[in-house]
C-alpha cells in the first residue's frame, strides 16, 4: 500500500464525522455589534446644544461661548426633583427614539458608544456631538459625552414645512432630562433650560472648524461644499447657487449623513442628515478642559434613585 491509498481512504471518512469538524471550523466569535446591541438596548440618548455660527448678517449666536455664566448652577445640581410627565412614564428607550429604531439606528445618531462600540463617526472622547430628533411635538436633542448620553427635550418646537430645523430652537425648551441610559435625572419643570445651556456654553471653548475638518476631511472630503451659502434667520441652510442646492439634495438622497459646508466667512458647518428620521442637525464640537469635565460630571452625580 502506498500513501495515495491512505489519502484516498481518508477522503471517504463518513460524513457525520466530517460534519462535526465542519461545525467547529465554522464557529465564529460573536461580532462586536452583537455585544453592542446589548449595550445599546440599555442606554439612553442625550442632549447637547447645537451652536451655529451665523453668517455675515451678524446675527448673534444663540449661546455665546463667552457668556459670563460662571460654571454649574447650584440650583440645577441641588434640585433633583422629578418631573411627572406622561412622556417619561414610558420606557425610556421608547421615547428616546422612535419605536422602530434599532440599535444600529442609535449608533448612527451617537458619535461614540463605548470603547468597543461601533459608530459611524468615531468622535474622540473629549468631544461630544448631538443630533436633533422630533418626537411628536417635542424636539429632542441627544448628546453623547464620553460614555454617557444626555437627552434634552424641548417642547414648543415645530420644524418648518421644508423639514429644516431652526437654529434657535433651544431657547424654547421647557424641561430637561439627563440620563445615562439606566437612570434619569429629571429636572424640575420650571428649570430654565437656558441655565443648562449656559453651563454647556462654559464647558468648553469652541475651537476652529479647522480642527473639525482635520478630523473629518479624509472621510467626508467628497461632501465638502463651498460657495454662496448662508443661513437664514431661522438657521436654515440657504443658497443662491443652484449647483450647491442640487448637490445638497443629491447627497441627502444618497443617504449621506454628514455634509460639511464652508461658509463665506470661513465658518464651517457640519450638517448631518438622517434621512430615516427626516431631520437635520448641525454639529458643534467642543474641547473640554479637565475642570470643565468635572463640572459636567457633577451633573451626573445626582442621577440616583
Amino acid at each position, binding site marked *: 500500500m*502506498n500513501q495515495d*491509498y491512505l489519502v484516498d481512504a481518508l477522503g*471517504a*471518512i*463518513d*460524513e457525520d*464525522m466530517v460534519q*462535526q469538524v*465542519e461545525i467547529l*471550523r465554522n464557529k465564529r466569535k460573536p461580532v462586536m455589534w452583537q455585544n453592542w446591541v446589548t449595550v445599546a438596548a440599555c442606554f439612553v440618548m442625550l442632549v447637547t446644544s447645537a451652536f451655529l455660527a451665523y453668517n455675515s448678517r451678524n446675527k448673534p449666536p444663540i449661546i455665546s461661548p463667552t457668556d459670563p455664566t460662571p460654571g454649574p448652577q447650584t440650583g440645577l445640581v441641588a434640585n433633583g426633583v422629578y418631573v411627572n410627565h406622561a412622556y417619561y412614564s414610558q420606557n425610556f428607550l421608547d421615547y428616546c427614539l422612535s419605536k422602530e429604531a434599532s440599535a444600529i439606528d442609535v449608533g448612527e445618531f451617537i458619535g461614540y458608544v463605548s470603547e468597543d462600540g461601533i459608530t459611524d463617526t468615531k468622535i474622540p472622547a473629549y468631544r461630544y456631538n448631538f443630533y436633533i430628533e422630533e418626537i411628536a411635538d417635542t424636539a429632542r436633542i441627544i448628546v453623547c459625552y464620553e460614555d454617557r448620553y444626555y437627552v434634552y427635550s424641548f417642547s414648543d418646537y415645530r420644524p418648518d414645512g421644508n423639514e429644516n430645523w431652526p437654529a434657535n430652537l433651544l431657547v424654547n425648551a421647557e424641561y430637561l432630562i439627563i440620563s445615562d441610559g439606566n437612570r434619569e435625572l429629571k429636572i424640575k419643570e420650571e428649570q430654565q433650560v437656558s441655565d443648562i445651556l449656559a453651563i454647556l456654553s462654559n464647558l468648553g471653548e469652541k475651537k476652529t472648524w479647522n480642527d473639525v475638518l482635520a478630523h473629518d476631511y479624509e472621510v467626508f472630503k467628497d461632501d465638502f461644499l463651498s460657495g454662496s451659502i448662508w443661513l437664514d434667520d431661522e438657521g436654515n441652510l440657504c443658497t443662491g447657487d443652484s449647483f450647491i442646492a442640487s448637490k445638497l439634495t443629491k447627497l441627502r438622497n444618497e443617504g449621506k449623513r454628514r455634509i460639511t459646508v464652508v461658509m463665506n466667512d470661513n465658518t464651517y458647518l457640519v450638517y448631518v442628515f438622517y434621512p430615516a428620521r427626516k431631520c437635520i442637525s448641525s454639529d458643534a464640537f467642543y474641547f473640554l478642559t479637565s475642570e470643565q469635565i468635572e463640572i459636567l460630571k457633577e451633573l451626573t452625580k445626582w442621577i440616583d434613585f
Partner: protein
Amino acid sequence: MEDKQIVDLYWQRNEDAIHQTQKKYDGYLRKISYNVLADLEDCAECVNDTYLAAWNSMPTNRPSVLSTYLGKIVRQLSIDVFRKKHALKRFSSEYAVSLDELPEIIPDQTTPEEVFAGKTLAESINRFLRRLPEEERNVFIGRYYYFDPLKKVAKYCGMSEGKAKSMLYRTRQKLKEYLMEEGFAL
C-alpha cells in the same frame, strides 16, 4: 438559501443551482482546495470543476448536507491535481506537509507490495475513527481530511498547538496498530 432548496434546483436542472452553490460555498471550497494546492489559480480551477461535478452528480445523488458533499468532491479533485502536477511530495501546501506525517502509518512504497481495495481501507479507517474520543477524532479529521494547518486545527478544537501535535502523533500510531490488526500489511 437552504441546502435542500439548492439540491432541488440541481434536480430541476436549474442553472441557478450553481450560482446559489457558489454564493454559499465558494469560500469554503476554496479554503479546502488551497490547503491541498496552495495555488490560487489551481484552486479556482478545482472549485469550478467541483461545481461541474456537482451538476453532473445531481440528480442521482441527493445529499442532505451540501457542504460536506461538495467538500469531499473538491478535496479529491484537488488531491488529483496535486498528484498530477507534482511527482515529488516536497511542496509547500498543508497537504504536502501532512503527507510527511503519514509514513508513520504507512511507509510510502514506490512499488506497493500489495494493493488493497480502497473501500476496505476506508471502512477500516471509519471504524477506527468511531472508536476514538471525539476530541482526537476531530483533530485527526481537521488535519488529514481538511488539511488545515495544525495551528488552526488546535484553535478550533480548543487546545494548544503542542497538545494537538502530540495528540495527532498518538493517533497516527494507534491507526497504524489498528490497520495491522485488521490485516493490512504495512
